[in-house]
């Protein structure tokens, strides 16, 4: 009987196990394999070392490390802006009426499901020197600004594309929050800021973490946004990987992907470790 049962479990789980092993795990092995081999598949550390040491001939700066740190910087800035913009919106949404909440939900999801290439392209035309933004600025009698091709333009694109991914997880956590806790805190003499800091913020941390990873990861690895809104050269780590892929330098592309993956995995493990411990401490205190 139990043999038949475990056979059924194996039949159900079999196809997925094979699929996941073949198409999730084996490909990751190939990233490492290509990263540590040269064109004739002999072991080498050159690809990895190239990432850390290759210098620009003109300025002497480290090309790929600079690109990586620029990606990190812009991704962090975008994530922080998304959080600052998205958090109040998520809170306002939870306080609205049921019907208003649903409408706002639809309004947030529409841009998410619209092809992000078209929307990013639209920003390119808006931010151009002769675009709508500058037309508007000039009609106010002000000096036009040059933003296309700068880091600010890339940040605008990232915030625009990924803001919904910040709002939705925070909203879904906040919507489940018991509002009586807020009322209780008010009754016990907390002012608005204290309620936010001591009740709402701690309760919404899981949503914030979810939102932060959902914005940080795509923005650190994007290449389309930076190609359209950046200055066209290898701007971000995603561009660098894509560029190596296009010029068929698969081993170096794999090396950069490998390094990016290791760094992100370490960062996520750290976040998980820190928050896991905090939850545990919170539980112990209570």
């Amino acid at each position, binding site marked *: 009987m139990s043999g*038949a*049962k475990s056979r*059924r*479990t*194996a039949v*159900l*789980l079999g*196809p*997925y*196990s094979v*699929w*996941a092993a073949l*198409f*999730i795990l084996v*490909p990751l092995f*190939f*990233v490492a*394999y*290509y990263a540590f081999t040269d064109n004739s598949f002999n072991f080498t550390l050159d690809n990895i070392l190239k990432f850390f040491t290759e210098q620009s001939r003109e300025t002497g700066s480290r090309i790929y490390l600079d690109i990586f740190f620029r990606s990190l910087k812009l991704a962090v800035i975008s994530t922080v802006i998304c959080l600052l*913009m998205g958090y*109040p*919106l998520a809170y*306002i949404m939870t306080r609205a009426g049921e019907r208003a909440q649903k409408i*706002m*939900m*639809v*309004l*947030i999801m529409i*841009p998410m*499901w*619209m*092809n992000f*290439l*078209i*929307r990013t*392209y*639209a*920003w390119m*035309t*808006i931010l151009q020197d002769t*675009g*709508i933004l500058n*037309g508007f600025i000039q009609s106010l009698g002000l000096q036009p600004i040059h933003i296309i091709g700068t880091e600010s333009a890339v940040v605008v694109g990232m915030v*625009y594309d990924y803001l*919904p991914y910040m709002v939705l997880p925070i909203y879904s956590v906040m919507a489940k929050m018991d509002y009586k806790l807020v009322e209780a805190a008010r009754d016990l003499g907390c002012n608005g800021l204290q309620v936010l800091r001591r009740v709402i913020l701690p309760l919404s941390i899981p949503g914030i973490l979810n939102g932060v*990873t959902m914005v940080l*990861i*795509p923005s*650190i*690895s994007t290449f*389309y946004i930076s190609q*359209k809104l950046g200055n066209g050269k290898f701007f971000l780590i995603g561009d660098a*990987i894509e560029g190596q892929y296009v010029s068929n330098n*698969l081993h170096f*592309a*794999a090396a950069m992907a490998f390094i*990016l*993956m290791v760094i*992100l995995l370490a960062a*996520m493990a750290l976040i998980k470790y820190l928050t896991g411990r905090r939850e545990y401490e919170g539980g112990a205190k209570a």
Partner: protein
Amino acid sequence: MKIASKVYTALVFIFLFAPIVILLVFSFNEGRSLAVFSGFSLKWYRELFRDEATLTSVRNTLLLAVSAMVISTVIGVAASVGIERLRAKWLKTAINTVTDIPMTNPDIITGISLMLMFVFAGRLFGLANSLSFWTMLVAHVTFCLPYVILQVLPKLRQLDPALPEAAMDLGCTPWEAFFKVTIPEIMPGIVTGAIMAFTMSLDDFVISYFTSGAGFQTLPIRIYNMTKKTVTPKMYALATIIFFVILALLLISNLTDDDAMAKRREKKRLKGKS
């Protein structure tokens, strides 16, 4: 405070919709500019429907999304039931960890990793170009699967294990109990998972970009190739059509579904009880 939050909400939504409104308006522009409106015209819509390559890419996208949805739903539902039944905790953790990988890894890494494997396998079998519809299908099923499992697993946890047991006591074989009791009970999760798989596949650009061959172009890839050069406004016409399709779908699923379905389900339950 109330007014402040209304103004704030309005500003955020203006930011979110400004580019979309501009696309909508300028898709009806007579000229090519995205800054100066020179007169109303439908000519870009006519051009769009004459653009064979774009129309083919729409068909390709739908074909790929439907195939990926069906395969990932079947494998994903079976896998979820299997995971839920597993006794060995380490095995459960191992499978869940692997399932998380495509969701947490950046798309570019998922794409590159699959591409490297396909290219390597292609060399092994002596194929000049191994990337095709099939490699894309494999890639799409792979990134859709975790979303199906994520939707189905919680529904299985809510399922009362006494139900399939009762069916078996009443003479069902285990497989009959599975198809007649378990599957209908977790149907809402299956449907949500399938819809998510469909939309993820429809919208994917990055992973498709690395795993697609020259012969099979999806709409996002087509749009990418179009935006490499200066774009003709027929792409805005395309964006406008996509916008209204999504708007209709979201309104139908969000505004009617919840109220009506909840009421109907409630009615059904009451009927069943009495």
